[in-house]
C-alpha cells in the first residue's frame, strides 16, 4: 500500500524552453511562539495586580478596569484561547495519555490561578478571567436568588467538571471548549446555536450575576475548593465587623454569609446531632450509588469516542443492521486495518469509560454527600463574612461597609497631610 504511494514521487518536468523555475509553496507560519511567553507574563501580571487590588486597594472601580482589560486581551484579542477553564482538559489528557504533549502555556494557565486561589482566594475570577469579566461588566440590576436554588444549580458545575474530566481522560473530546458560550462571541464567528447561547447568557447576566461562573464553570469548582483553604482572601471589612448588615444584600452572587444572631449562637441541639449522624451515614451510600450509576452510563458515554463510534458502525454494517456506509467506515475499510483490532480497541475504551464513569459518579456522590453534611451543621458566625467557596472577590461589598468608608477617609486625610 505504501509502496504504491512512494512510487508516485518522481522528478518534476524540466522546462527546457522557458527555464521556468518551480514556485515555492507558501507556508504562512503560525503565531509566534514568543507571544506565548507574553500571554503567560500578562496572566501573571494580571493575577498579581488583581490580588493587590482586592487585598490592598479594595477598589471596585479599578478592579473593573482590570476586568475590562482582561476581557479585551484574553477574550477579544486572544480569541478566548488559551483559557484556564479549558486547560483542565489538557492537563487531564496529559495525565492519562503520556504521548500527549502538553503546551507549557496551557499548564501555566491551568496551575497559576489555582495557586493564587490557594493563597489569596479567587482573584482570577474577580478580574482576570475574560468570561467572568464579561458577565460581571454586564451586571446592572442584580436579582438575588434564593440560597437553596443557588446551591442546587451549583451542583451542575460539579457534574460538568466530572464529565469534562471523563471525556478528556478517555480521548472523547473537550466538551468545555465545545460548549463554551462566550468563545464564539470573542471570535465573532462560530455555530449559530452557540452564539445564541452566549447572547442568552449575556442577557441573563444583566440580572443574574455571572450565571456561567456560578452554575456551570468547572474551573470555578476547582478555584472554589482552593479558595476555601486560602490564607488571605477578600474580607468585607478592613476592621471589625459592626454587624451593620449593610453588605448583606449587596452581594449579587449569594456569597456573603450572614452573622449568626447572638440568640442563636448556641451549642448543637440533639436534633442537630441526630441529623449530622444520619447525613454522615448517608455519605458512603451516596458515593456507592454514584459509583454504580456512573458505571452504567459508561457504555453510552463511550460513543463520544471516535474509535468506539466507528467500531459500532462497522459492527452494525457487518451485521446488516444498517445499510450504506459513512465517510468514517469507508475510510476505515480503505485503510485495511482488520476490524477485530478496531473492536479490541473499542472494547478497551469502553472499559475505560466504565471506569471513568464510575469515578465521575463517585465524585458527584461525594460532593452531594459532603454538601448534605455541611448543611446539617449549625453555623456560628460572629460577623458577616464572604463565603470561602463562592466569593469571587468582585469588591462590591467593600463599597458598602462603613468601616471601609472610615478607612478611606483616614487614608485620604493621611495623604492630605503628607501632601501638605
Amino acid at each position: 500500500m505504501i509502496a504504491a504511494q512512494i512510487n508516485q514521487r518522481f522528478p518534476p518536468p524540466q522546462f527546457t524552453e522557458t527555464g521556468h523555475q518551480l514556485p515555492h509553496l507558501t507556508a504562512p507560519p503560525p503565531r509566534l511562539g514568543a507571544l506565548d511567553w507574553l500571554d503567560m507574563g500578562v496572566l501573571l501580571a494580571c493575577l498579581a495586580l488583581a490580588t493587590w487590588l482586592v487585598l490592598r486597594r479594595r477598589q471596585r472601580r479599578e478592579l473593573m478596569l482590570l476586568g475590562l482589560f482582561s476581557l479585551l486581551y484574553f477574550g477579544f484579542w486572544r480569541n478566548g484561547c488559551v483559557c484556564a477553564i479549558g486547560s483542565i482538559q489538557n492537563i487531564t489528557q496529559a495525565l492519562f495519555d503520556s504521548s500527549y504533549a502538553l503546551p507549557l502555556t496551557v499548564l501555566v494557565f491551568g496551575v497559576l490561578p489555582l495557586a493564587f486561589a490557594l493563597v489569596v482566594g479567587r482573584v482570577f475570577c474577580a478580574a482576570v478571567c475574560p468570561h467572568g469579566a464579561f458577565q460581571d461588566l454586564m451586571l446592572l440590576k442584580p436579582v438575588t436568588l434564593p440560597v437553596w436554588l443557588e446551591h442546587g444549580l451549583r451542583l451542575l458545575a460539579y457534574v460538568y467538571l466530572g464529565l469534562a474530566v471523563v471525556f478528556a481522560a478517555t480521548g472523547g473530546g473537550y466538551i468545555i471548549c465545545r460548549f463554551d458560550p462566550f468563545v464564539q462571541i470573542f471570535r465573532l464567528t462560530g455555530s449559530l446555536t452557540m452564539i445564541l447561547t452566549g447572547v442568552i447568557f449575556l442577557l441573563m447576566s444583566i440580572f443574574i450575576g455571572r450565571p456561567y461562573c456560578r452554575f456551570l464553570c468547572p474551573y470555578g469548582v476547582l478555584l472554589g475548593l482552593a479558595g476555601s483553604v486560602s490564607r488571605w482572601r477578600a474580607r468585607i471589612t478592613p476592621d471589625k465587623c459592626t454587624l451593620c448588615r449593610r453588605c448583606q444584600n449587596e452581594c449579587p452572587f449569594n456569597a456573603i454569609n450572614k452573622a449568626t444572631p447572638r440568640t442563636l449562637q448556641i451549642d448543637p441541639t440533639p436534633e442537630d446531632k441526630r441529623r449530622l449522624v444520619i447525613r454522615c451515614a448517608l455519605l458512603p451510600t451516596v458515593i456507592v450509588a454514584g459509583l454504580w450509576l456512573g458505571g452504567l452510563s459508561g457504555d453510552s458515554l463511550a460513543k463520544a469516542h471516535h474509535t468506539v463510534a466507528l467500531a459500532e458502525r462497522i459492527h452494525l454494517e457487518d451485521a446488516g443492521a444498517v445499510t450504506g456506509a459513512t465517510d468514517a467506515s469507508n475510510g476505515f475499510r480503505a485503510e485495511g486495518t482488520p476490524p477485530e483490532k478496531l473492536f479490541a480497541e473499542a472494547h478497551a475504551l469502553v472499559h475505560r469509560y466504565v471506569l471513568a464513569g464510575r469515578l465521575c459518579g463517585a465524585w458527584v456522590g461525594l460532593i452531594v454527600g459532603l454538601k448534605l453534611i455541611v448543611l446539617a451543621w449549625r453555623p456560628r458566625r460572629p460577623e458577616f463574612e464572604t463565603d470561602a467557596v463562592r466569593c469571587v472577590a468582585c469588591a462590591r461589598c467593600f463599597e458598602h461597609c462603613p468601616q471601609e468608608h472610615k478607612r478611606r477617609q483616614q487614608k485620604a486625610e493621611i495623604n492630605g497631610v503628607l501632601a501638605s
Partner: protein
Amino acid sequence: MKRRAFFNGLARVAALFGLGGLAGSLARRAQAGHTVWQIDPWKCTWCGKCATECVLELSAVKCVQFYDICGYCDFCTGYFEPQPNKLNTGAENQLCPTGAIIRKFIEDPYYEYSINEPLCVGCGKCVKGCTLFGNGSFHLQIRHDRCLNCNECSIAKACPVQAISRVPADKPYRFKTLEGKK
C-alpha cells in the same frame, strides 16, 4: 476557630505541594514551543467536512499546490471537470466551484496550477480529482495565517478518519514529500 485555621493551613500547604508536584511532573513533559493543528495528507479522504466544520465561516483549511510533485498536465484532473467541454479556462470547464485555481501556460505542453487562497473554501474537490488520476500534488492543509488554533479543533472532531492532529509549531505543515509516505 484556631483549630479550624490550623486544618485550613494544613490543607492549603498540602494542596500547594500537590499542585506544585503536578505542575512539575507535567512541566517535564510539557513543551515550551506550542503546537498547532494540521492535516495528514496521507490520511485525508477529501470528505468535504473541512469546508463546513471549521469555526471560521471561510475555513482555515485551504487546498495547497505542492509544485514539486505536480505533473504540469494540460488536462489537469484537479482543474477540469471530468469531461470538460474544452481544455480552456472557461467557467464551464472548471472543477473548482469557487474558481480558486489559476491555470498558467508555461511551455508546450506544460501548464502551472496555483491556488488563489482567498477564494478557496477547502472543499477538497480538486484534491480528490488530482489524487485519483494524477500525482496528488493538490492537498488540503490548515493555513496558519487563518487558523485560530482552538483548543479542540472542531474539524478534527468531525474528521471521519482522524487525519487532523497537533504538530509542533516549528513544523506547522505536513506537505507530501518527494520521497512519499514514510
